[in-house]
């Protein structure tokens, strides 16, 4: 496929990079990414991946835009309040880059539908706001042999890591099991600085881009944490866990599992 002059101009700052070039840009245009959660993390990730020309982007979220989302979920505008998040997100992404395809999945992602959902994509971005969803996404990606980016944000802190099959620990190697419901506050109860979603969600987009262009090192085998109050990033090296319930030598989790949500999260937050 040859680039049109308009594509050369749109993607010139990518193509001009030795590490991307025409080949890397074409790989991005042939790539597909599923973003689960059109919230604080998913918003910047979706916008940057759309702008980068990732050819097909799926976005899954059951919620509608709420006024309390707008402090951080920069893909939605005030006029979008009440609209399905996936629709609002899709409109923003296509406004930036009408060349891409956006697939909207207005649904609660659960053990019963996640395998079918992720099967159609090359890379998954976890932009969810609760532990049951994070473990569900991890298990489904491990079981499907799918690369994904984990991230979480709360208050002034954020973290992310990348899972690539066979190249390091999964989320469950590190965190084993979800905490008991209500043991850890989510950002709807604890608060979060809006720009934290911008920092960490953008890093997730960065990992997806690097995964496709095959350049540099991914956060496989390492958890990157960011504290905005001290402005410290820490990269913590983490090994695989041989007895991991899902990616270990003798897995006990052979299909995705739904864990109970904390009662106060049932109306969503993100």
């Amino acid at each position, binding site marked *: 496929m040859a680039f049109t*002059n308009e594509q*050369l*101009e749109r993607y*010139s700052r990518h*193509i*001009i990079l*030795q590490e991307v*070039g*025409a*080949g890397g840009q074409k790989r991005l245009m042939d790539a597909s990414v599923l973003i689960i959660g059109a919230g604080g993390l998913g918003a910047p990730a979706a916008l940057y991946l759309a702008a980068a020309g990732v050819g097909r982007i799926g976005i899954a979220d059951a919620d509608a835009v709420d006024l309390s989302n707008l402090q951080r979920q920069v893909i939605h505008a005030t006029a979008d309040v009440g609209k399905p998040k996936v629709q609002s997100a899709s409109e923003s992404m296509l406004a930036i880059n009408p060349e891409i395809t956006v697939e909207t999945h207005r649904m609660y992602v659960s053990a019963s539908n996640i395998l079918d959902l992720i099967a159609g994509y090359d890379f998954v971005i976890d932009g969810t706001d609760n532990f049951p969803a994070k473990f569900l996404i991890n298990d489904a990606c491990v079981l499907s042999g799918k690369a994904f980016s984990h991230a979480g944000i709360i208050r002034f802190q954020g973290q992310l890591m990348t899972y690539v099959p066979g190249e390091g620990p999964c989320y469950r190697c590190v965190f084993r099991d979800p905490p008991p419901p209500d043991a850890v506050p989510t950002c709807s109860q604890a608060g979060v600085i809006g720009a934290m979603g911008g920092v960490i969600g953008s890093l997730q987009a960065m990992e997806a881009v690097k995964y496709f262009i095959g350049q540099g090192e991914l956060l496989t085998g390492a958890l990157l944490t960011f504290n905005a109050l001290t402005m410290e990033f820490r990269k913590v090296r983490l090994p695989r866990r041989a007895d991991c319930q899902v990616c270990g030598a003798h897995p006990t989790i052979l299909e995705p599992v739904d864990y109970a949500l904390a009662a106060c999260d049932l109306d969503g937050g993100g």
Partner: protein
Amino acid sequence: MVDFQVDETVDITDVVCPITFVKAKVALEELDDGQVLLIHLNDGEPVQNVPRSIKEEGHQILKLTGNEDGTYDLVVRKAGG
């Protein structure tokens, strides 16, 4: 005098800097190492900048000829051959 045979031609007179270089770079990427590209470019900024940028990427400039109509033909051998 360098002997060469042009394998591919690209016209970058229909775009402006910095897309001129981007278009030439993409055309070079699509060649095999050692193949020769003829780049048709405009006088002014393109002829001042494009040959230099191509050289910086490690390719070999074989020839630059001025045409009578304010355009140039730049012949480049792709690095690595």
